[in-house]
């Protein structure tokens, strides 16, 4: 199994480690619910160094990245853009963050489990005037998330963190180490992600934990990362989106810029838009006891009407929540649906997203 630079530290902290897409990663330190609530109320520190980083540079890079992704990335230098990456048929290869580091310098931050596939697709179609490099081994990645994040990090930097607006990046020092700092995350909270040299990971982790002590910081594992992102209705690749789903049905229409001259998947997505989607990703809350899990059927009037893509107990709401694809005709806030849990029918209600 692959290990991040902080692997030993996680073991020393007593984390439960799991195989996450070929990486040995911490799923929890003290408990998922406790860590979840720490991030919502104070802050938590995650090691997400398994994420992949693909660099695209060269005179043709802006045109090429815009051809690759559905969203518009020809924006001010220093901005971070979330976007799906689609095949010609509109199916989602991956969802990623595009960091515009300089006018002809982009960093694509991709899901660890999709990195090889992404790299192959991106390389295959690349024109001669761009250079593509897999820099995943050169970056560790820490995510400091939660309302106290700015206060915690401020004592470790000598600039004003409030200057970094959401989805913006800077290259600055934290605790004397140069890194990319962005105001981004995957929890629905304010926070920062730090792209740093793996050699600096231990020291930076420890300095943040020390600074965060008075603010109630906790180390946070991938278990609560999942419950946090679900409450915020952020899609998880492999669960809510995959090659058989398109951005329009996944609630990601806002990331598809049809006014761009071209991009991979445009033709198929224009057709889907014009014909109307057949299903939509919706959120629901269970009214009876039970927990919806990925793959369970959704029924309306005793007929299959969709399937669950993600589901969990929600520590913030103290309810059982989920997301799933539902046939378009039933998509309506307040609609009563049934989740089939081990052949038991459990009542649920469609609600507005996000949950929090």
């Amino acid at each position, binding site marked *: 199994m692959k290990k991040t630079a902080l692997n030993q530290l996680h073991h020393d902290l007593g984390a439960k480690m799991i195989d996450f897409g070929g990486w040995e990663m911490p799923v929890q330190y003290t*408990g*998922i619910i406790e860590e979840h609530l720490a991030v919502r109320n104070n802050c938590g520190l995650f090691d997400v160094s398994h994420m992949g980083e693909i660099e695209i540079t060269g005179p043709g890079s802006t045109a090429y990245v815009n051809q690759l992704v559905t969203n518009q990335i020809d924006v001010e230098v220093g901005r971070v853009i979330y976007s799906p990456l689609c095949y010609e048929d509109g199916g989602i290869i991956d969802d990623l963050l595009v960091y515009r580091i300089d006018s002809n310098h982009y960093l694509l931050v991709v899901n660890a489990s999709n990195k090889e596939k992404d790299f192959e697709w991106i390389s295959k179609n690349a024109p001669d005037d761009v250079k593509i490099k897999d820099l995943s081994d050169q970056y560790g990645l820490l995510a400091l998330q939660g309302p106290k994040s700015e206060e915690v990090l401020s004592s470790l930097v000598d600039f004003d963190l409030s200057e970094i607006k959401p989805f913006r990046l800077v290259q600055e020092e934290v605790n004397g180490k140069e890194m990319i700092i962005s105001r981004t995350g995957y929890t629905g909270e304010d926070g920062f992600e730090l792209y740093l040299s793996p050699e600096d990971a231990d020291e930076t982790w420890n300095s943040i934990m020390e600074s965060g002590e008075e603010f109630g910081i906790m180390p946070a594992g991938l278990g609560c990362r*999942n419950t946090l992102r679900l409450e915020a209705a952020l899609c998880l690749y492999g669960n809510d989106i995959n090659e058989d789903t398109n951005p329009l049905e996944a609630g990601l229409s806002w990331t598809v810029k049809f006014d761009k001259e071209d991009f991979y998947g445009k033709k198929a997505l224009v057709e889907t838009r014009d014909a109307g989607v057949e299903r939509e990703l919706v959120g629901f809350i269970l009214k009876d*006891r*039970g*927990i919806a899990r990925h793959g369970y059927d959704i029924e309306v009037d005793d007929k299959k009407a969709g399937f669950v893509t993600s589901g969990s*107990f929600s520590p913030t709401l103290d309810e059982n929540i989920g997301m799933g694809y539902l046939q378009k005709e039933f998509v309506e806030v307040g609609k009563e649906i049934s989740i089939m849990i*081990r052949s038991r029918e459990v009542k649920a209600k469609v609600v507005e997203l996000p949950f929090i």
Partner: protein
Amino acid sequence: MSIPAGFYYSEDHEWVKVEEGVGTIGITDFAQDELGDIVFVELPQVGDEFDKEDNFGVIESVKAVSDLYMPVSGEVVEVNEDLLDQPELVNEDPYEDGWIVKVSLSDESELDELMDADEYSSFLEEEA
């Protein structure tokens, strides 16, 4: 890791405590710790009959769904209804308030196939 004496233990990390032919069944401290925060327990009905190793319920933590297997054969005489609203009792007190079902044992000799506290402790060490 707590492994009280006087209980019988199964390789599925369940315990049985026997009093006057009735076995109280739960999961061990090791099992609750492995599962993490427990958020749902699906219980059988009083009167349901199970053979040893039958699936009699489901326990769900935030991250996983696990089946519960009977360590002994018998008929369910009581279920812990407190777990419906407070499944976290299994984490907090796995050997007392976090018990799951009580069954009238149909064959007490089955208990001989289970482990005592020392044997279960060695079993955990071997598994680790």
